[in-house]
C-alpha cells in the first residue's frame, strides 16, 4: 500500500510525460484523486497505535546499507494526508491557467508528490535523503520553467542553498551510519541507536549538520533568505507546493530524524534552536509589515509561522510536537489558500503591489469571504485551524520557558497587524482602475477555495480525530528521547 502511495504518482507522471495528453490537467487531477482515495483507504486501515504500519522493506544497495524501507505511523499518516489532499487542490487551482507544455507541468507536480510522500514514509536514512533531494528537482524545474522575472538566478540560489544544507545532513547520516552497531545499515532504528551511543560532543556536531538542513528547508531565520525571492518568483502552483507541503519536510525531519537520533545534541542545542526560531518569528513578522508585494508578504508570514512550529517542536514535549503536527496541516491549507487568492488577484489585475490594489471587496464578495476565513486561519483565530496549533505550540513554549513563550506569542499580535493591513489594502476601500473590472470567483476557483475554507474550519472546530492519529506515535518518539535523557541522569 505504501509503495502504491509512493509510486502511483510517479507512474501517472511518467504516463503523462510520455503520452502528452491534450488535457493533461484532467488526467493529473484524476490521478491525484486516486491518490486521495488510496490515502483514505490507508487511513481507514490504519490502527491507531504507535506502531509503524504498512511496512515494506526491500534491499536495494546492500553494500551501502541502503534498503527501500518505508512504512506509515501516525506522524507519517498525517503528513501523507496533507500531501494527498493538497495536491489535487493545487492541480485544480491551475485549471484556469493554460500553461505551456502542460503535460510537463503536471507530470512534475505528480513527481513532486511522489518524492514528498517518500520523504514522509521513509524508514531508511539514505532513502529519506534520496526522496528529500528528489523533491527538490521537480519544484526547481516548475519554478525555472514557469516562474517569473529573474527566475534563473533566484531558483539557482534556492537550489544550491537547500542542496548545501541537505549535504550537511548527508554527512551527518553517513557519520551515524558508520556508528551503527553490527553490520552498518541506514535503518532508522539502528541510526537511533547509533546516535544515542555517541558522546555528547559528537552528537552536537550531528545535531548541527542535520539541523542546518532542516532549518534551511523550513526555513528558519537566519537561513531563510532564499525563500521570499523563490516564493515570489515561482508560479502559483510552485509556491503552493513549496509552502504548503515542502517546508513541512523540514519540521518532519526534526521530529523524526533529529530529536530521537541525537537526544544529547538536542538537549544541548535545543534551546538555541528555539531561540533562533522565536527570533525568526518576530523578525519575519516585522519584515512582513513593510512588504509592498503581496506574495512576498505572505512568504515572510510563512517564515514567522514556521518559526513558531519549529520552536514548539524543539520543546520536545507532546504538546509542542502535537501542536506542530496540527499546525503543519493548518499552515499547509491556509498558506495554499492565501497564495491561491494572490494568484486570483494577480491573474485579474496583473499586479501584486498592495498599493495598486483595493476595493476588491466591492465586486467580489465570495472571494472576500474566503479571504477573511483563510486570513483568520492565518492569524489563529479560535475555531479556525490556526488556533489549535498555535495554542498548543505557545503552550509548550511557555512551559519550556515562560519568556520565550511570551515572545513567541507576539505572533498573535504581529500576525494580525500585517494580515489585517494586507486585507485592508487589497480588499477594502474604493475600487480603482485595476480592480474595478474584477470578477468574482469562478467555478474552479470555488472548487479549490471552498474545500480549503471547510478544512480550515473543520480543523479548528474538531481537530480531535487528527490529533488522535499522531498522538501515540509522537508519544513514542518522545519516549525514545526521554528515556535516553533519563538514562543520562
Amino acid at each position, binding site marked *: 500500500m505504501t509503495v502504491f502511495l509512493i509510486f502511483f504518482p510517479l507512474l501517472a507522471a511518467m504516463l503523462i510525460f510520455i503520452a502528452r495528453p491534450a488535457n493533461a490537467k484532467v488526467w493529473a487531477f484524476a490521478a491525484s484523486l486516486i491518490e486521495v482515495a488510496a490515502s483514505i483507504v490507508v487511513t481507514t486501515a490504519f490502527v491507531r497505535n504507535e506502531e509503524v504500519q504498512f511496512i515494506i522493506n526491500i534491499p536495494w544497495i546492500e553494500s551501502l546499507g541502503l534498503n527501500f524501507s518505508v512504512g506509515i505511523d501516525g506522524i507519517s499518516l498525517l503528513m501523507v494526508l496533507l500531501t494527498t489532499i493538497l495536491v489535487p487542490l493545487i492541480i485544480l487551482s491551475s485549471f484556469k491557467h493554460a500553461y505551456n507544455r502542460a503535460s510537463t507541468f503536471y507530470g512534475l507536480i505528480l513527481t513532486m508528490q511522489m518524492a514528498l510522500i517518500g520523504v514522509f514514509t521513509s524508514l531508511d536514512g539514505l532513502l529519506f535523503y534520496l526522496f528529500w533531494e528528489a523533491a527538490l528537482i521537480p519544484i526547481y524545474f516548475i519554478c525555472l520553467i514557469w516562474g517569473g522575472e529573474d527566475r534563473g538566478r533566484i531558483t539557482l540560489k534556492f537550489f544550491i542553498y537547500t542542496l548545501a544544507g541537505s549535504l550537511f545532513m548527508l554527512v551527518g547520516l553517513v557519520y551515524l551510519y558508520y556508528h551503527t552497531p553490527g553490520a552498518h545499515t541506514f535503518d532508522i532504528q539502528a541510526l537511533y541507536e547509533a546516535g544515542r551511543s555517541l558522546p555528547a560532543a559528537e552528537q552536537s556536531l550531528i545535531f548541527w549538520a542535520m539541523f542546518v538542513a532542516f532549518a534551511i528547508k523550513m526555513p528558519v531565520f537566519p537561513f531563510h533568505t532564499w525563500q521570499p525571492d523563490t516564493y515570489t518568483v515561482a508560479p502559483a502552483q510552485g509556491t503552493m507546493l513549496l509552502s504548503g507541503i515542502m517546508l513541512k519536510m523540514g519540521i518532519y525531519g526534526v521530529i523524526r530524524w533529529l530529536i530521537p537520533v541525537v537526544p544529547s545534541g538536542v538537549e544541548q542545542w535545543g534551546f538555541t534552536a528555539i531561540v533562533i526560531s522565536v527570533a525568526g518569528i518576530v523578525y519575519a513578522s516585522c519584515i512582513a509589515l513593510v512588504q509592498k508585494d503581496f506574495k512576498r508578504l505572505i512568504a515572510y508570514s510563512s517564515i514567522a509561522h514556521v518559526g513558531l512550529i519549529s520552536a514548539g517542536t524543539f520543546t520536545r514535549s507532546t504538546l509542542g510536537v502535537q501542536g506542530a503536527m496540527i499546525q503543519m496541516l493548518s499552515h499547509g491549507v491556509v498558506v495554499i489558500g492565501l497564495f491561491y487568492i494572490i494568484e486570483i488577484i494577480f491573474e485579474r489585475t496583473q499586479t501584486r503591489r498592495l498599493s495598486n490594489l483595493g476595493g476588491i471587496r*466591492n465586486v467580489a464578495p465570495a472571494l472576500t469571504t474566503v479571504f477573511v476565513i483563510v486570513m483568520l486561519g492565518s492569524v489563529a483565530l479560535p475555531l479556525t485551524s490556526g488556533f489549535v496549533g498555535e*495554542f498548543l505550540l*505557545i503552550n509548550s513554549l511557555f512551559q519550556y520557558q515562560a519568556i520565550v513563550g511570551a515572545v513567541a506569542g507576539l505572533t498573535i499580535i504581529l500576525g494580525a497587524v500585517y494580515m489585517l493591513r494586507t486585507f485592508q489594502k487589497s480588499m477594502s476601500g474604493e475600487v480603482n482602475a485595476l480592480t474595478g473590472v474584477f470578477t468574482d470567483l469562478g467555478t474552479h476557483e470555488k472548487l479549490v477555495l471552498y474545500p480549503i475554507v471547510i478544512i480550515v474550519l473543520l480543523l479548528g472546530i474538531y481537530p480531535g480525530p487528527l490529533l488522535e492519529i499522531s498522538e501515540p506515535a509522537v508519544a513514542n518518539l518522545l519516549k525514545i528521547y526521554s528515556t535516553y535523557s533519563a538514562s543520562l541522569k
Partner: protein
Amino acid sequence: MVDIKLLASLVPLFPLLGFLIIALSAKRLSEKITSVLACGVILLSFILSIILFTHLAGTTSGDPAIRVSLFNWISAGNFHSSISFLVDPLSSLMLLIITGVGFLIHVYATGYMHGDEGFSRFFSYLNLFVFFMLLLVMGSNYLVMFVGWEGVGLCSYLLIGFWFKNQAYNDAANKAFIMNRVGDLGMLLGIILIFVNVGSIEYSDVFAGATTIDPSTVTAITILLFIGAMGKSAQLPLYTWLPDAMAGPTPVSALIHAATMVTAGIYMVARNNLLYSLSPLAMELIVVVGLATALFAATIALTQNDIKKVLAYSTVSQLGLMFLALGLGSFSSGIFHMATHAFFKALLFLGAGSVIHALGNEQDIRKMGGLKKYLPLTYFTFLVGVLAISGIPPFSGFFSKDEILAAAFAHSKPVYLLAVAASLLTVFYMFRLIFLTFFGNERAGHDTMHHIHESPKSMTIPLVLLAVLSFAGGLAGVPEALGGSHWLNAFLSPVFSPSQGILAPHHLTHTTEYILMAIVVACTLGVIAFAYSRYVSGGHVPRPDGQITGGLHRVLYNKYYVDQFYELTIIKPLYWISQKLEAVVERSGIDGLVNLSGKSIVSGSNVARHLQNGRIGYYIFAMVAAIVLILVLGLI
C-alpha cells in the same frame, strides 16, 4: 419535560444557525426574511435564556449550575479541553442581558439598516456576534471563553469596518482588532499559566485547586488575565480603540461597544473572583486602572463634539467604574452596574442612532440643537438614559452606582472622592450632550431640517422598552438601606461566596449610606444646574475645531494626545525598525552574505581561470614546480 441541558446548548446554537443561514444564502433572502430570521433566532435564545434563568432561580437546593459537555476539542498529551457549557447564576444573568438587549438592538437595526446594501451581511455578523458572546459567557472552561473572547473581537472588527469603502473605518477596525489582540495575548498566556499550575482549564478544577497555587503565580495569572480584560473592556492603556470603534453602525456601538462585548472583561474578572481575591496586588491594580480610566475618559468626554464619541468615552469611563467595583471586591456591584449600564448605554446609543438617522448621518453636536420637538420620543427616551447614567434616583443607575461608591467609601476615602468626581463629570458631559442636542437653537443645515423625521416603529419600540429597563432595572438591586432585599446579590451569591469568604468586605451602616447618597445626589443636581446654565440658558456652543484655545481644553479635546503618543512611541518605531531590518539586516546583511558567497565564487573563478593562460612554457613550469613540491611532500 425537555432536558435542561439540551436547552442550554441550544442557546448559542440559534444565533449560529441564524448566521449560517443568512451568510450562506448570501443576498438571496429579502430584507424582510432576513430581519425576521435574525431577530427570531435571538428571540428564541432569549426565551431559552429566560427558561434557564427561571430554572436556576427556582433551584434552591445544592449547586444549581447546569453543565453541558459537547465534545472534546483540543487534547494533546496531558492537555485536554472540551467544548462545554456552564450555566450558573452569573452566566444566566449575562445570557439575559445579551439575548435581551441583543434582541432589542436587532429589532432596532432592522429599521436603522433598512436599505443598506450590506443588510444581510450586517445581520449575519450580528448573529455571529451574539453566538460568540454566548460562548464567552457560557463556556465552562477558559478556552471556550477564549473562543468567544476572540470571536467577539472578530465580529467587532467586521462590524466596525462594516462600511469598508471608507479606509478610516477600516483603520479603526484594524486598530480595534490589534489592540484586542494585545490583550488577548495576555489572556492566552494567563490561561496557559493556569494550565501549567493546575493541569486543567475547567473552571471547576481551577477554582477547586486555586488555593494550592503559589500566591505570586496567582498574581501573575490574574494580572495576565486582566491584561486581556484591559484590551477587551477598553481600560488604560488599551482603550483608544473604543472611541474609534464608533465608526461602525450605531446598533453595533450599542450592542458590542456598550452593552455586551466590552463588558466581557467585567464578566471575566467576576468569573475569576476567587483567583483575584487571592491576589491583593492584582486587586489593587484593578482599582488603580479602573479609577484612572474612569477619570481619564470622563475628562476627555467633556470636550468631545461627536455624539457617539461622547458616549464612547462615557462607556470607557463607566467600565472603569465597574472595574473599580471589582477591584474593591464588590463583584456583584460590578455586575449590577454592568447590567444597568447595558440598559441605559444601549438606550443612549440607540437614541443617538435615532438622532443620527434622522439628521442624515450627522454626528456633530455642534450642528444639532433644538431637536426636542422634532424627535419627541427619541428625546424622551434619551433623557431617561441620561438620568439613569447620572444616577438620579430611582433610575437604575442610581442603585448600581451608589453601590460602587459605597464600596469605594468603605475601602478608602481618596478612592471614593475620585470615584465621585468621575461620576459627576459623567453627569456634566451627559447633560452637556443632551442640552446641546435637544435644546437650544437649531443649528443643523436647512436641508437636514427639512428631511428630519422621527424614526420608524422598529426603532422607537426598542427605545421605549430599553427606557423602561433603564428606569426599572435598578429594582433588581435595591439595597437593604432603602428597604430592598438586594435580590441580585442573593442570586449571584453562589458564584461570589468563595471570594467573599476570603475578602470579607466592609459593610457600611445604613446611616452612612444615606449620607453618601444624599451628598452624591445633591452634587449631581448641582452639576446639572451648572450644565443647564451653561448650555441652555447661556446658549454656549463648543467652538469649531480650529479655534480651540486654552492648554487644558486643547489637551482634553485632543484626548491627551494618547493616539499621537502611541503613534510616536510604538507604531512609528515599529515600522522604522521593520524597514531597517529589511533594508539592512535582511537585504544587505543576511542575504548579502549569501549573495556574497556566490559572488566570491564567480570572482574566484575569474582569478582561477587566469592560471590557464594557454602558454605551454608556463604550463611546464607549473608542472615542474609541482613535481618539486610533491617530492618535498613525499620525501621529507
